[in-house]
Every structure is written in structure tokens, then in C-alpha cells.
């Protein structure tokens, strides 16, 4: 799929061909090994098809007390009061700032709202990066378990989305995080829907192209979607020199 840029000059691909996806994954893997970031390539027996995989522990602060009730009684749900929504609203009210400076009180973590330590839980996440043929983009699949091995419900996953991505996502995320059968493993996973990928890749691909800066499509894509679900991409991926100067995305000026 190609799109005209706003200038109407060059044509820029906002998607990625499967071969390029593989190439990007291999480069990511090389960097991951250098950085000990834990990614591995899993391939389906007897075929080229595969995916990147990583497991990690994540400390999650559940945002909704209703979810907390589902999780169980071991925590003190009564003291888990303020969810991020209230926190953000409070920040907005306090921030009567003068237009030309950032005031100290515009902070999302000023300690204004006391969140009980009990509301944090350490979870085990497993992330898979697959290629979607229908969207021609990478797709992030994941599953999450408590340390006791209980799988998270969809509601719990929605409540553990990073608050940076809006109350709307936490409350009505149907279009974004869904339960899907893993295309290669056939097991139930959660998936971040790829429909917005072009939209958030467009600005950065345009910027990179304008600066003649090589971009690893998969790595850049991951830097946007990963944080939604607790997967931060270490900065070192972007400070290390890329191993090869060849174009890693499909941005090609005509």
C-alpha cells in the first residue's frame, strides 16, 4: 500500500513488506543480543514464518477499582482509592499556569493522590511480534499472568494500559486490545489491533525520510505500541549506530 505524501512528490510506504519485516526483526534481534534485552526469534517448524518473542516482569498499577474486585480479596481494595483518572483531573485543575512556562505543579505524579501499595502487582508478560499480511504491518500479541500463573482477564488488561494513552482507551478499548487466537500457536492471546499503525507511523517515517535517517520499521513501531502494555524499548536501541546503512523501511523517494 502506498500513499502520496502531503507534498505530492514522493511516494512513501506506511506499511512494510514481509521480507522487510523479517530483515527488521533480525536487526532488532542483533541489537537485543548486544543489549541483553531478551528478544528471541521463534520459527514455525519447517517454514520461514516466525515471530519475535520476549518475556518480562511488569509491575502494574490497576486503574479501576472494579477490576480490583475481580482480581481478588488479598489486596485491600478499600484503600485502593484514586485511579489515574482522578489524578489527571486534579492535575488539570491545579495547573493554572501562565502561558510561557511549565509550572512545577503540572505533574502527573506529584504524590497528590495516594495509591495504596497493595494496588500494584507484579505480572509476567509474554510479548510476540508477528507480521500481519492483511495490514502489512507488525502486530503485537501478548499474554499476561500473575506470578501464581493465573491468566489476566480482558478487563484487567484494559485496566493496566498505560494511563498516558487516555481514559478513553481504558474505558472503551474494544477497537484496540482484543483477545485473539495466536495465528501460529493457536492459543488465546491479547492483541493490539494494527488498524492505527499507519497513522502513528506516518509522521515518524516522514520525518526520517526528510532527514535521510534510516529507520527500523519494527523497532520504531514497537517504540509506539509497546508502552501501551508495559513494554518499553530501551533507548540504547536508538543511540547505537545501526549495523548497516541500507534502508530498513520502505521509504523510497521517487
Amino acid at each position, binding site marked *: 500500500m502506498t500513499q502520496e505524501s502531503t507534498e505530492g512528490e514522493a511516494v512513501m510506504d506506511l506499511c512494510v513488506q514481509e521480507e522487510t519485516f523479517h530483515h527488521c526483526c533480525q536487526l532488532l534481534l542483533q541489537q537485543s543480543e548486544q543489549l541483553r534485552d531478551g528478544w528471541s526469534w521463534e520459527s514455525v517448524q519447517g517454514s520461514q514464518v516466525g515471530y519475535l518473542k520476549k518475556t518480562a516482569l511488569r509491575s502494574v498499577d490497576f486503574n479501576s477499582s472494579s477490576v480490583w474486585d475481580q482480581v481478588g480479596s488479598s489486596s485491600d481494595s478499600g484503600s485502593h482509592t484514586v485511579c489515574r483518572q482522578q489524578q489527571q483531573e486534579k492535575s488539570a485543575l491545579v495547573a493554572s499556569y501562565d502561558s510561557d*512556562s511549565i509550572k*512545577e505543579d503540572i505533574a502527573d505524579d506529584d*504524590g497528590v493522590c495516594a495509591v495504596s501499595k497493595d494496588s500494584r502487582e507484579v505480572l509476567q508478560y509474554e510479548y510476540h511480534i508477528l507480521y500481519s499480511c492483511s495490514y502489512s504491518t507488525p502486530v503485537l500479541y501478548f499474554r499476561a499472568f500473575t506470578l501464581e500463573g493465573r491468566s489476566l482477564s480482558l478487563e484487567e488488561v484494559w485496566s493496566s494500559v498505560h494511563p498516558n494513552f487516555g481514559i478513553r*482507551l*481504558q474505558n472503551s478499548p474494544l477497537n484496540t486490545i482484543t483477545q485473539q487466537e495466536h495465528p501460529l500457536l493457536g492459543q488465546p492471546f491479547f492483541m493490539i489491533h494494527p488498524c492505527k499503525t499507519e*497513522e502513528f507511523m506516518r509522521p*515518524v517515517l516522514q520525518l526520517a525520510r526528510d532527514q535521510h535517517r534510516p529507520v527500523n520499521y519494527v523497532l520504531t513501531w514497537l*517504540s509506539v505500541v509497546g508502552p501501551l502494555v508495559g513494554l518499553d524499548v530501551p533507548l540504547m536501541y536508538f543511540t547505537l549506530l545501526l549495523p548497516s546503512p541500507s534502508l530498513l523501511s520502505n521509504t523510497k523517494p521517487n
Partner: protein
Amino acid sequence: MSDTAESPTESPPKEEPPKEEPAPPAEESATSEDKKKIDVLLKAVGDTPIMKTKKWAVERGRTVQSLSQFISRFLKLDATEQLFIYVNQSFAPSPDQDVGILFDCFGSDGKLVLHYCKSQAWG
């Protein structure tokens, strides 16, 4: 480090939060290093509104999320809109990342350039 307005005809006075403002609640983890400020230059991408003031002095310890919220409020984005921020024209920083660290890694000419773009929110 001072706040600088974009207009070349003005010489705005150095702007800092007024001293009589009540001190923010002390954070145990905030160090004096976190309070140091770095210069950030904000650049709009696409048809995202351009901020009247583009250059800001930001505390090192402020997170990308906090800065993103500030820009969103400044631009009066509504709940259906999401702001994306890009560093080094090549990736998106984690919302929990300190801007000070980004400045250390990707700053040049004494400033950190951040591109921002508004889009339809997830959800």
C-alpha cells in the same frame, strides 16, 4: 536556562515560576539533578497546531507523559485526540522516560528537539 518566546521582536523577561507559589509536595525521589532544566524545542508534524511558544525550559526529571499532557492541554486537545511524540525523527520515547535522559542522549546545540503529532485516540 530560560524560557524563550519564538517572536524575534520581543525580549521576554526570564520566566520562572513565581517564588511566592507554594512549593510542590516534596518527592522523596526528586533529586536536585531532577530540578535542573533543559531546553526543549517542540515542532509540530503534519496539520497538528503549532505552539505559539516552541522553546521551553523543562526540569530534567519531568516525564514524557507529563510533557505530553502539558502540550495536549496547551493545544486544547479533546478526549478523542491523542498526542504522539517523536525523538530524533526516528522513534517514540516511553511515556515514563525522563526528558533529562532524552536530552543527554539526543540533545544537540543545547536543546532537545521533540516532534509532536495529534491523531485520533486509541479506543
